[in-house]
């Protein structure tokens, strides 16, 4: 026990000193570098419209009106709550989970005028891990395109072109999966209308 007590003084001092090094100096130096070199990214890749912050390029948000592309279902708070990121964490055989997927499939078909046995892209009926996923699959966007075009009185070809424009391919050819950024795409649609 005496041996332990003898180690307590360096232990106490080491916690304090290393807190200053790793908990104060390191994060503040990182913040300084980040703010100087990548100001917009370090602040959360915010998007402004007419001087007002309307969201972040990286964080999805809720869209329910027919003239917008709809994002994936979200388990973050009431949906896309940026202060409550979360997945559903429901298990693969949970009856509640299976029921909500069936309901979403039916709603998706009705919304987009699909047949009663049309297959629905998996991302359109499953919640993401963060609940803030800004992307949808290209297949999902293609199925929503006619609805959006109709609601806006636009040519389907015009909307399809925008979808292609806001499709992020794989990074460096092989990393990750391609997806359409819903926030950027919907903003571009609004801009088209304005």
């Amino acid at each position, binding site marked *: 026990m005496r041996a332990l007590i003898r180690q307590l003084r360096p232990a106490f001092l080491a916690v304090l000193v290393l807190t200053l090094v790793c908990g104060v100096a*390191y*994060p503040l130096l990182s913040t300084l570098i980040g703010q100087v070199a990548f100001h917009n990214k370090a602040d959360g890749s915010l998007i402004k419209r007419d001087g007002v912050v309307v969201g972040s390029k990286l*964080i999805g948000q809720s869209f329910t009106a027919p003239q917008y592309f709809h994002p994936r279902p979200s388990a973050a708070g009431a949906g896309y709550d940026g202060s409550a990121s979360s997945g559903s964490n429901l298990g693969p055989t949970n009856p509640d989970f299976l029921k909500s997927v069936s309901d979403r499939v039916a709603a998706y078909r009705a919304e987009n005028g699909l047949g009663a046995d049309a297959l629905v892209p998996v991302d359109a009926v499953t919640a993401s891990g963060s609940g803030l996923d800004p992307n949808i699959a290209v297949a999902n966007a293609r199925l929503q395109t006619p609805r959006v075009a109709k609601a806006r009185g636009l040519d389907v070809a015009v909307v399809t072109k925008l979808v292609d424009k806001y499709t992020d391919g794989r990074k460096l050819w092989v990393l990750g999966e391609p997806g359409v950024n819903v926030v950027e795409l919907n903003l571009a649609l609004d801009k088209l209308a304005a």
Partner: protein
Amino acid sequence: MSWQAIVQGLVLIAMLAVAVPPLGKYMAAVYGVRADGSAPGDRFFGPVERFIYRLCRIDHKREQRWNVYALSLVAFSVMSVLFLYALLRLQGSLFFNPTDRQSVSPMGSFNAAISFVTNTNWQWFSGEAAISHLSQMIGFTVQNFVSAAAGMAVVVGLIRGITRKRSRTIGNFWVDLTRTVVRILLPLALVFTVVLISQGAVQNLHGNTTATTIDKTTQVTTQAIPGGPFASQEAIKELGTNGGGPYNANSAHPFENPNPVTNILEIFSLLLIPLSLVSMFGRLVGDRRQARILLAVMVGILMVFTVFTMLAEQNGNPKLTTAGVDQSISTTQSGGNMEGKELRFGAAGCGLFAAPTTGTSTGAVNCMHDSFTPLGGMAPMMHMMLGEISPGGVGVGLVGVLIMALLAVFIAGLMVGRTPEYLGKKIQAAEMKLVAIYILAMPFAMKPFAAASAVLKSANTYQSGPHGLSEILYNFASTANNNGSAFAYQGTGTQWYTTTQGLSMLMGRFLTIIPALAIGGALVRKPKVPATVGTMPTHTALFGFLVAGVAIIVAGLTFFPALALGPILEHFSL
């Protein structure tokens, strides 16, 4: 799986193959492989270290026996727990709290303090809802560094026990701790932080920014965009195999892991140090073949689990196909079981993260493991139950595999009737008793608690059916192995879980670390016996299979019956 997903895996292997040998060489120098004790960067790091020694009143020239070394580690951990506990209890009244977080409850703080000090980073709470910026910065970020450094000090102490002859001391804990932080973790973390910010990870000092959302017809027309000094925490969270992120969604959150480039870099960085330590081990013992065979065992097991998880998740959930969902791969979608997964990573990019995060003791997740298919979820669970040796957490992973190697030479020695030796040291009864304690510690820290939780009515916070048992098993495997990932549906903020899981983390950490240092202390006194024709070589493929076999049999016998009632049963209900 798409061919791109396979190439993505190969890119990861290539990145590690390039980075591991030089880092291993550098770390060997940091821990004193050179005769004169010099190391690269002495002119810069030397004064910094000496300044820290002076402030902490450490006599850096004085070496410690194993028991003093262990006591130093325990004292440091005790102080860290007290500091973190006090910080969390008081955070509501402290400064730099732009999101107005309240102080954490007593049992919640107890659990969280232990969690971060033991390198587990188990989080019963949601980071953005419960923890102030100050606590994230001077509490969690600091422990991400020092708990990792303490783990590395342990393995270095054990290796010195093997390499030194007829000696008494195994180094100085304070020196190893300081040098690890200053020379290895800080430089790597700083570089990685800048890369993460350049890709979109946040690094600022604000609270939430309110955005006015685009679609005015939705129920809520504002959105909180969270801020904070979090890229710097993300970097060390992966490098130190910690895993506790500032956000609830962890590395699935776009601000922690913005795109596929950061995703592969995060996987890379959580494997980097554990693998480099093995390379370092080869240099410290002066026989790099010994390291190569252990690396082969670790990487072999890791690859099996990685490919298995990727395939299981990419194949999707048959119940969804019945419901009219298209889970196939095509040119317009990546498919797979996408519940709990981010589109930018896909099912394959999620499997590629899940195996390394559970094979190391990281526990960061880029997708929600609780929503995996039954077999896809069993893989990370089993990977932890192997004792996290493929390649294991920083430091403690290599300790685990060395323990398996000692057990393997012992079993082989029994078979041929000779005294077992490892790297010139006789392995005798004293060491084997400590090995036995080490191996029993993890199941002991897991199974009684898991069993009690399955019977206690008040502990029923899990989903119904066999999946509920999977949740209990996964979560106690995670705490007992100091992993930190979770089947997160299960509510673990109750009195029962914060207490038992806190104890489970303590036992999983210290009942393994102390016996490991004791083995180092026992071996360091012994002379080196010259290898003879009767010595079993420990750098051959045969020995590699023996080590892997021992690890799998030990875990298999301990955990297979429970797995049969959880994930396997659920699989057959699909």
